[in-house]
């Protein structure tokens, strides 16, 4: 909801840092992100590409640096001081993730290099074990390619079938079609929590309850929800939940796979190597216990410790407060975007996060992106790794504004003004 009093221009209008009336102090949040002081083509950076990756707060940068300066060692194998310290910090990060998503046990938190690897891990292990010729996997029309291709590879290998839940013109799942897609052959539903190109929040709880009533496990791709919504995997009762750390203000190359312990126990290992074993001889290998069974090789130790710091940072602010500020900014943005000529939003779901895909009639998103870049504005243009969504709306690409907690009303105003430059070029 928009508070009309906030529309009043203040004398700080030159300054992109301003206090917001909702009580959320974006100005002081911005001070935690050194990169926001960058200038691009001589203009202050206005970063509106947060669904691609978020920037990193100083605490994450410092934690990572501190790790290399004071701790650097391999984990889980040394008896020396540094190795023990590194192991402790790495495992503390696991506890931070567990607690953040309210998993029951540390055994349920597998560290990966990203959501993509997490999904591939499930496809290669759970998938290979449980999906056979004629079986079915259900995904949706709005999946990121990372939640399409691994299942396509698996179904092709096994002679199984991939079924797709359609979406309506608002970019919402056609939930009434889901029961008809489920059959006795359905072995898994893998569904995105929040769409990266449409911003739609899917009713995953409803999907999980329906699936479980038929004994079907559900994987939830939380890549775009973990940074916006409070996640409680026990309340959701999802069987798998995946996300990438770099979209949660953590380093790139960090990811998480949450899986219910009994499911993870039943699954074969993913990659073979060090750390995932208990004992190796040439005749037989005894696999390590959870979660290490799925973590072969030296992991991204610094990255995961950095992710732990990112989670501390987000919890320190409060995910609910972040969500409420982002909602406020989204409403503000939406109320101003409608005034932009030729503006057509792509994705107008009732339940949405702060992601706005749009096209301007007759102007290609790439040209919009290049012109806005010269105004210091970073947005994403293209198909967002969701080509089926583009096909559904019969467009080749969109421009996408995605808002994070450090964005401000003034940045939205700047964006709206900058769009005029696009019209100046394409008069």
């Amino acid at each position, binding site marked *: 909801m928009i508070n009309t009093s906030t529309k009043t221009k203040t004398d700080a209008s030159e300054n992109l840092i301003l206090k917001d009336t909702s009580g959320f102090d974006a100005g002081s949040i911005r001070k935690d992100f050194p990169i926001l002081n960058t200038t691009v083509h001589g203009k202050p950076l206005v970063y509106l590409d947060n669904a691609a990756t978020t920037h990193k707060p100083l605490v994450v940068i410092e934690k990572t640096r501190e790790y290399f300066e004071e701790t650097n060692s391999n984990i889980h194998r040394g008896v020396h001081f540094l190795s023990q310290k590194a192991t402790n910090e790495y495992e503390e990060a696991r506890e931070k993730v567990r607690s953040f998503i309210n998993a029951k046990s540390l055994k349920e938190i597998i560290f990966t290099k990203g959501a993509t690897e997490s999904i591939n891990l499930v496809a290669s292990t759970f998938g290979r074990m449980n999906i056979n010729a004629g079986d079915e996997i259900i995904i949706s029309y709005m999946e990121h390619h990372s939640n399409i291709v691994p299942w396509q590879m698996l179904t092709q290998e096994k002679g199984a079938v991939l079924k797709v839940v359609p979406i309506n013109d608002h970019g919402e799942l056609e939930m009434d079609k889901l029961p008809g897609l489920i059959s006795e052959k359905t072995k898994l539903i893998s569904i995105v929590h929040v769409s990266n190109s449409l911003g739609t929040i899917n009713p995953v709880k409803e999907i999980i309850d329906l699936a479980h009533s038929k004994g079907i496990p559900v994987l939830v791709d939380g890549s775009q929800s973990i940074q916006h919504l409070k996640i409680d995997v026990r309340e959701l009762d999802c069987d798998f939940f995946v996300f990438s750390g770099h979209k949660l203000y953590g380093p790139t190359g960090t990811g998480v796979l949450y899986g219910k312990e009994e499911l993870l126990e039943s699954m074969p290992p993913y990659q073979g190597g060090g750390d995932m074993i208990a004992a190796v001889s040439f005749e037989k290998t005894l696999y390590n216990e959870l979660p290490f069974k799925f973590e072969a090789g030296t992991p991204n130790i610094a990255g995961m410790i950095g992710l732990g710091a990112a989670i501390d940072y987000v919890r320190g602010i409060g995910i609910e407060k972040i969500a409420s500020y982002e909602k406020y900014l989204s409403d503000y943005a939406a109320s101003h975007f409608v005034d932009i000529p030729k503006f057509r939003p792509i994705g107008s779901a009732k339940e949405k996060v702060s992601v706005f895909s749009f096209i301007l009639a007759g102007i290609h998103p790439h*040209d919009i992106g290049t*012109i806005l870049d010269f105004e210091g504005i970073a947005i994403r243009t293209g*198909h967002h790794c969701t080509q089926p969504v*583009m096909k559904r709306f019969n467009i*080749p690409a969109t421009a996408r504004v995605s808002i994070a907690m450090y964005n401000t009303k003034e940045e939205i105003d700047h964006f709206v003004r900058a769009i005029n430059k696009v019209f100046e*070029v*394409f008069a």
Partner: protein
Amino acid sequence: MNNELKELYQQVILDHNKSPRNYGKPGEFNHSAEGYNPLCGDHVDVYLVVDEGIVKDVRFEGSGCAISKSSASLMTTIVKGKTVEEAESLFEDFHDLVTGKLTDEEKIASLGKLGVFQGVRDFPARVKCASLPWHTMKSALRDEPTKVTAEP
């Protein structure tokens, strides 16, 4: 407007974007190829009529940004009437122009209207937009069956 932007979006480019020449699939053609940029979704089909080593007609169809669309449009106007060898040689020159390898002013001037694409060299992310139609045409002339996927 910023100078680099002005260089990129020159009037000729904006004009060809607005009213592309030789647009649409022809009734008859003997060479064709499909160009596609998987990174951005840009898509162009190029159709040619080649007779006794001469490009008698060339048309295109597709969707893309102003740079790729105008590049395709200008390409068709310039290649028409040229020999296949000349067309391929123009491809090389154009490629060098947009990647900034071609700096000889005289040579650039000899390319005529194609010179308007010189500004692209300052936008590495947009080089593939400008060169996709040319890659596609080259592929069509050589009857290469696979889809063209722009710059590596």
